[in-house]
């Protein structure tokens, strides 16, 4: 079917209408993403947590490699210590 079946003429709107409509839409999407923030955070924790565990704890214990993130190291040293017990 042809495209002209849908009357879509944003060019007939004033620039103010277009600006308000456009910026509100961006705000709505941002609000929508904000609602997903808990899940994104959870996924980030899971994924990032596993990565940290792999890099900072497992790898450090078994590989004996020096960690490149010294600020996080003490916290995970405790975990490593607890794990060793």
């Amino acid at each position: 079917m042809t495209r002209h079946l849908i009357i879509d003429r944003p060019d007939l709107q004033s620039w103010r209408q277009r600006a308000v409509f456009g910026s509100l839409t961006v705000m709505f999407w941002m609000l929508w993403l904000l609602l997903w923030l808990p899940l994104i955070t959870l996924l980030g924790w899971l994924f990032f947590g596993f990565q940290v565990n792999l890099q900072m704890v497992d790898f450090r214990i078994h590989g004996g490699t020096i960690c490149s993130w010294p600020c996080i190291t003490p916290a995970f040293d405790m975990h490593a210590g607890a794990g060793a017990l």
Partner: protein
Amino acid sequence: MREDVRFESNALCWILMPETLRGLWRQRLRWAMGAQVLFAQYTHLDQWRHRRMLPVYIEYFTSVLWAFAIATVVLLWLLGKFVAMPEALYVSTLLPGWYGVVIGTTCLIQFAVSMMLDSRYERGLGRCYYWMIWYPLAFWMLNVCTTLAALPQLLLRRDLRARWISPDRGLHPSNARGSQAK
């Protein structure tokens, strides 16, 4: 004669939408009033012959119930700003919880599926998806307001004859040219 309803995938329908918020409000209010009158006067829940209408009734009554529930939540939230509310009735935020996100996501998925199906007829329809966020965030709220506004209007009105002015058709090329010339 026995009636039957089937799905026709090649059927094309179209609708002219209002172009201003005022026009949209009027249209939705009219539809909300019409639906409430219809369902109040012509609902045949007790007739076996109308059993296939049951999902329509359920969908409609759930929507009305939802509209009033949302209004109650907003009212409780507002009250909580001024009056010390009991804990069970205190609404801390209007931001939807996970259930709100589930409903909204379902809506957005439905749009995605319908656009996918319709893209058979309309190429590049997916580009409109960007605007669909208006539906769960703004359009539903508008429907809540019209559902609420329709009820007192129906109860209070004396004139039984339904009258309306057709939605505005303001965005004509000639009008736009005229406004640009000014």
